[in-house]
């Protein structure tokens, strides 16, 4: 998995691509931990994401907690969206 980081003022965008599974989710965890303290809003661009498992989902929940709800998931592919739906994410998170 690769993570591309882009910061604009207080908004950070992380573009995730590839497989976000048990093995790779620590990379996302690290990226979240390494976010500058000035960042108050986080956008996860999932356009290139092919796969997500519960480990990845957990990191998303953690990110949402860290941003106090200011997390936006954008460009969610249908397949990933189905996993969100199964996990009950669609009503709890801000998905555009």
């Amino acid at each position: 998995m690769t993570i591309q980081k882009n910061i604009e003022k207080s908004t950070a965008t992380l573009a995730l691509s590839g497989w976000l599974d048990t093995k790779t989710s620590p990379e996302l965890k690290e990226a979240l931990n390494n976010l500058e303290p000035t960042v108050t809003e986080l956008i996860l661009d999932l356009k290139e994401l092919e796969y997500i498992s519960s480990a990845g989902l957990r990191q998303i929940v953690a990110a949402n907690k860290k941003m106090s709800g200011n997390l936006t998931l954008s460009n969610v592919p249908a397949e990933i969206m189905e996993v969100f739906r199964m996990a009950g994410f669609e009503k709890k998170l801000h998905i555009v």
Partner: protein
Amino acid sequence: MRTSGSVRWRVVSTFLLVFLVIVLIIGSAAYFYLRHTGSRQYREYAMDAAVFVQDTLKESDINPLPAGEEYEYNRKILRNICDALEMQYLYIYQPNEAHDSISYLYVTASDDKEDEIVRKERPRGKVIPWVLDSQEENAYAGNQNTKGRLENNRYGYVISWVFPLRNESGTVIALIGADFQMTKLMSTVMANLIALTLLLGGTLLVTMLIQLFLLQRMVFTPLIRISSYMTRFASGNHLHTDLPEMDSCNEIRNISEACIKMTNDIRNYVAELERETDERAQRRTQMEIARGIQYGMVPASLFVEKERISVSAKMRTAQEIGGDFYDCFLRTDGKLCVMIGDVSGKGIIAALFMAMTKSILHEQLNLGMDPAAALERSNQELCAQNPEMMFVTVFVLVIDVHTGEAVYANAGHNPPVLIKRGEACLMTPKAGTALGLFDDVEIENESVRIQSGESILLYTDGVTEAVNEYKKFFGVDRLIGLLADASKSELLSSGSKDNENRPAEDVVNTVLTGVDIFAQNSEQFDDITIVAVCMDEGEGQEHGTEAEDAKRKILEPVQDSFDVMKEELLSVCGAGPETRKIILASEEAFTNIVEYAEATRIQYKIEKGENCTIVTLEDDGRPFDPFEVKTEKEFDELDTGGMGLMLIQQIADDVERSRRNDVNCLRMVFQEKLCENPE
């Protein structure tokens, strides 16, 4: 016989031929009649002349022949007679005694020049050698009735008569010759003949022409029109042109009316036929769809494996759709429900009733009812909605997949066959009553324990009543014999199985092949449905075959080892979204084991079926069933876990947990989805 040529020309040529024949006959008849009449008249003239001569000449005028004035006087009288009676020559002559010469006494001609010539050539008393012919002899003997003689001599074409000349005492003293010019008679005859022929022929011709004209107008023209119309109609290209109205006589009108009626009928038949063909095609399409729907409800073949129980089924309908059905599903309490049924009758009606029965029964069983209760309850529903008095026989079997303990109930269905090691026998369930007829049937539960290696065969009467070319039924005995034999040979060959360990499928195929061989030359009359339920030989997974073992892979219980499994899933199932879901569920299960089971090894097995993928994970960790503890977590607490099992349950169509011989086993079944449906 077939004749060719148009009617018109046949009639015209016949007319002409008849005309010619008639003219010829009339002409020749007229010719002979006229000629006969003409010659008869000449004969009368000749006889008149003879009478005149007899009256005029005395014996003294002959013997001796006078000379001078008297001779000339006599000759003049004779010439007057000759002229008056239209003769050419009138002459008196005398044969000598020896009858070898004659002497001319008087010779006259009507024509002046001719008279002068004969006066010189045949002068008074001229003797010429002449042999008397028969008529002359006749006349000289005194016979008056001499016949006319036709002669073509130097005096022209003449007819002549000869008569005797007698003296007073009646003795014949000379012969009277009377010659008539035939040419003259013939020209008169011909003139009359031509006039007659022209008149008669003309009349005939005019009559025939009028008839031809009428025939042409009233028969030929309409006939030709009808015939050309029929030819065009028969060619099929002018199906919609009408026969034009014709003003004609009754018979032709009848033909044309019949023709119009016939063409209209044909037109209607053709239209009707086209409509029928369309409808038939539509019906066939609908039947195809119905067939699709039915096989959607009751697949043509099925294979289910649960723990040690495997079930295989096959259905083959006699018509497009049928009235047999079976079902096999795992109930929420972990019990396997198997049913088979046969609706009375065949075709659409049976199929509709079958669909209803199957749905109702499935629902009842799924509610957790025992077989008898489900059958009784279904019977009540069927009775309430059965105006056609259809009925259905059903056999229901509910099996505990771990122990092989089975509860069954029969509603009038054929008793199943129990196959043990090397032998087969009929089970003896209570007969029960078929469903749909009486709303107070009593059906009882019975039970049996399916031992290891035993099988139960459920079937419909399409199997036992399959008919061969000699009208013999397949029969229960043959079925039992077939299964017993198959079971024996399987025992002998066990250990070298190449059938991927699917005894249930083997049993079904054995029966189906047996029926096919038996009835190979006969049409299938009834729907054939076969369901086999088999209990595995072994006591646990440890006793699986080598082939089975080969499929199992052993992994280290660390997260990185999942990559091996992931790669295999990708290669077995392909890199599609469905596969990623299977990987997701497998990963969650794997992670669970790694994180919580404290196992020393993880074993996995991937089976790719026709319509499903089965992933089995086994670990030697501590006994636990993650699904037993269901803790509802708040969303914000999900980052600590708890989503994995939820995902597995949502993705897998069937999840099964068990623990045997200190091994935890998790079996996930993923059905292949025909289309993506996020809802």
